[in-house]
């Protein structure tokens, strides 16, 4: 049996993270190229929203990633609290800026989509407001980590914040069902399948995988720096070729 705890050691995870990040970078570049081409040249003009609907190809993937990254961070926070592994807190920390950026993209593209279709950049609607709260949760987590000097205490405080904030995720997801909102309901769901045309759905899924690969690549590259910063006194760090130069 493969011992998963072997990879919870920063020394073994550091090179592994580098390898996965490199592969993910190539996957992201490839999928982004294909996805962008399809977004503009293959996907047909929408009969109702014209060319304006093309924002969906970044809006939905970014919104999905914003929620997914948060759940992954909360998962690592929980693992860190239970098993007291150093690496899990580093993972949560590495994911936070990417999650915040994805949330920002979801809000920004949402505003740029809302303006022509609803006539307003912003409305205090349940979906939009809960997504904005998600953005503040990311910012709050980053600020909290930065404000506490002792790494261990910062990790624990951050983990508690992440776990408490996780209640917001189902609120975002189900907000379009629970409240009367301006935001449209889900176009894609596990139960009902998709209400979009196949080619639009395929494009959106390719963009989603592209964002996925991008997020993995960028946060794994970031976790490598965090590992170096935190383990700077460890022997294995001083023996790394990039440090010894």
């Amino acid at each position, binding site marked *: 049996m493969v011992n998963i705890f072997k990879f919870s050691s920063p020394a073994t995870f550091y090179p592994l993270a580098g390898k996965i990040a490199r592969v993910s970078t190539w996957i992201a570049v490839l999928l982004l190229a294909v996805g962008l081409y399809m977004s503009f040249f293959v996907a047909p003009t929408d009969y109702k929203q014209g060319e304006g609907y*093309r924002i969906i190809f970044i809006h939905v993937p970014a919104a999905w990633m914003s929620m997914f990254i948060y759940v992954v961070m909360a998962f690592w926070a929980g693992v860190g609290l239970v098993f007291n592994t150093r690496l899990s807190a580093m993972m949560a920390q590495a994911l936070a800026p990417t999650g915040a950026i994805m949330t920002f993209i979801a809000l920004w593209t949402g505003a740029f989509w809302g303006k*022509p279709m609803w006539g307003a950049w912003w409305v205090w609607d349940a979906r939009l407001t809960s997504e904005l709260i998600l953005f503040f949760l990311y910012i709050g987590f980053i600020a909290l980590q930065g404000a506490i000097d002792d790494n261990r205490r910062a990790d624990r405080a951050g983990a508690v914040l992440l776990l408490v904030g996780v209640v917001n995720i189902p609120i975002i997801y189900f907000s379009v069902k629970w409240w009367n909102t301006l935001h449209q309901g889900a176009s894609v769901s596990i139960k009902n399948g998709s209400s979009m045309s196949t080619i639009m759905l395929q494009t959106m899924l390719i963009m989603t995988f592209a964002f996925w690969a991008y997020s993995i690549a960028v946060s794994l590259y970031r976790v490598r720096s965090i590992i170096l*910063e935190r383990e700077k006194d460890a022997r294995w760090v001083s023996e790394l070729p*990039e440090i010894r130069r």
Partner: protein
Amino acid sequence: MKGGLSEFFAMGGYALYVWGSFGVTALLMVVEPIMVRQRRKAAISRISRLIRLKSEQKS
């Protein structure tokens, strides 16, 4: 693309919204990796300086 480049960029009248969305997203996805790279460079140079200092103190 039948109407040429200018029609493509016009996005059927939605140019501001479509390019405002894709543009800012692209910008962020370029800036973030640059920042990650800078952080790595800073970490490596700081740690190698620390290690050099330590070895000089020993000798």
